[in-house]
């Protein structure tokens, strides 16, 4: 700390020092940024880029237990895995379920998160602290833990929810929709805090004069939100939306634990769990990889939309 304080003091003292852009004219500057970047690039290259390449490669091969153990030579299948996958009615069913489930999760998370962020700005310190702490608790709960706790809450025999709602021994995980609904509740519970805290931090950064001026001009609460806050919060809203899309599209743990690996007869499978089951349970590594490639492409498309949004906002990279 002392170092930086003296440095600040000296900046003030040496106010007349010639301004010079760092990174220009200093010896060794050409290589310094790459030196700083080297560890990140090595790690990302080895553990992200190379595996992506491998994923694509395996998806074009015949790769099952026989090839992995070396019993049979690997052979090139071209688009064989993809035609097999796309020709399978099951894949389309899982894809549709994944998209709908992720969309429901994202919308619910955003609505709950934003509503509670606005609520946080309207209350005094004590209720705000209570809500903030509860939300941080939900956020901190590991996915496996949260999954089992929600299962107990909704357990047909021992759970409090059925008692309170008077549902008798209704099983939530038995039906397809109710099982998805239960997982959705858990996902929203553990992911709304990120949205709430981020949006709350964003609202606090909006100068209160702006809001006061709006309310003096007679704007309604809805109008203030719609015409003043929302536009100022747009960058934040874009970030939390995209993050939620990414997280909710690849939910694994909650589905796997709460529906016992994809539900009765696979009725609650999503792409991620489906790929895992194909690869590690059925040793169909190449089919699992093809599913992985499909997921990658979908999220890449989302990314491109995100990039365009950022660009349109004039965000400087």
């Amino acid at each position, binding site marked *: 700390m002392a170092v930086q304080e003296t440095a600040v003091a000296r900046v003030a003292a040496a106010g007349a020092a010639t301004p010079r852009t760092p990174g220009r004219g200093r010896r060794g500057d050409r290589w310094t*940024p790459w030196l700083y970047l080297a560890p990140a690039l090595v790690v990302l290259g080895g553990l*992200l880029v190379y595996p*992506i390449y491998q994923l694509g490669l395996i998806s074009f091969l015949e790769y099952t237990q026989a090839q992995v153990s070396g019993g049979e030579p690997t052979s090139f299948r071209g688009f064989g895995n993809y035609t097999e996958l796309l020709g399978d009615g099951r894949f389309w069913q899982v894809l549709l379920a994944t998209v709908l489930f992720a969309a429901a999760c994202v919308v619910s998370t955003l609505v709950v998160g934003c509503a509670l962020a606005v609520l946080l700005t309207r209350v005094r310190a004590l209720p705000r602290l209570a809500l*903030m702490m509860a939300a941080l608790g*939900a956020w901190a709960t590991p996915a496996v833990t949260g999954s089992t706790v929600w299962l107990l809450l909704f357990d047909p*025999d021992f759970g409090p929810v059925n008692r309170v709602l008077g549902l008798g021994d209704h099983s939530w995980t038995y039906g397809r929709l109710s099982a998805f609904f239960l997982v959705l509740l858990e996902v929203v519970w553990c992911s709304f805090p990120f949205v709430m805290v981020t949006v709350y931090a964003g609202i606090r950064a909006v100068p209160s004069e702006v809001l006061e001026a709006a309310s003096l001009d007679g704007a309604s609460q809805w109008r203030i939100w719609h015409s003043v806050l929302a536009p100022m919060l747009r960058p934040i809203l874009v970030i939390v939306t995209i993050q939620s899309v990414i997280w909710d599209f690849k939910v694994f743990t909650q589905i796997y634990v709460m529906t016992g690996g994809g539900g009765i007869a696979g009725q609650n499978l999503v792409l991620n769990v489906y790929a*895992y089951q194909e690869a590690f349970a059925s040793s169909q590594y190449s089919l699992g990889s093809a599913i*992985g490639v499909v997921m990658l492409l979908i999220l890449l498309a989302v990314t491109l939309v995100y*990039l365009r949004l950022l660009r349109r906002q004039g965000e400087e990279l």
Partner: protein
Amino acid sequence: MNLVRRNRPRGLVRRPWRLAAEVSALLIAAVVAFPLYWMVLSAFKPAGEIESTRPRPWTLAPSLDSFRRVFGQQEFGRYFVNSLVVACTVVIVSALIAFLAATAVTRFRFRFRTTLLIMFLVAQMVPVEALTIPLFFLMRDFGQLNTLGSLILPHIAFSLPFAIWMLRGFVKAVPESLEEAAYIDGASRARFLWQILFPLVFPGLVATSVFSFISAWNDFLFAKSFIISDTSQSTLPMALLVFYKPDEPDWGGVMAASTVMTIPVLIFFVLVQRRLVSGLGGAVKD
């Protein structure tokens, strides 16, 4: 200062509304906290009570039986240490690497800088779970299966892009004149980096570390896929599932293990809470 940054705009809300808002905030807080309350409660319920078909929201005879069963289970303590080692290594290593990279992309102008930034952004979107299969073969080829390394390495890689992206704002916020002054005073680049920039960016590193800690501590898929034969190298999520058999779950054990697993993260969150809120604000304001 007070004028610019007042927490809530006064005069916007009339009194009865404020009261209603506060009551609902407290109610919602109770609902959100309820699963955690039920988890801890169930962990302390004595054996017979948790299997009661008329569950009570309190217990008259709190017992440590479930915790004894959990810690009596072979190697549970070891799983706990393994999880801590994985999460802490990921947090520290990725924070250091991300700090260097964020410095490079914010404080230098060089060719391919924008390209790199876009690549980091795109890398954030990669569904890491989809890479389980190639990573499995990669870890096998490097003899890393059944080691903690197979959990640490991928999580470092996956938390990096987000960490770099988030830290960018913090590094940018440090005035360039500070760097000038340091050099004028004869500081070397390394000295500036570690003794001046690093402490200034530290709050941002804390906020970032929340995300890497959570992703590593939560990891279930990699532990399930990469730790296949040597269970002494396993982590807490797998230990938890020892008690959770879909047909006959030991709810007391599951809830006790869940409580033990959640507490370190809760402590971590409480410690960094303030930094987290200001960090997220700082990162998104940018």
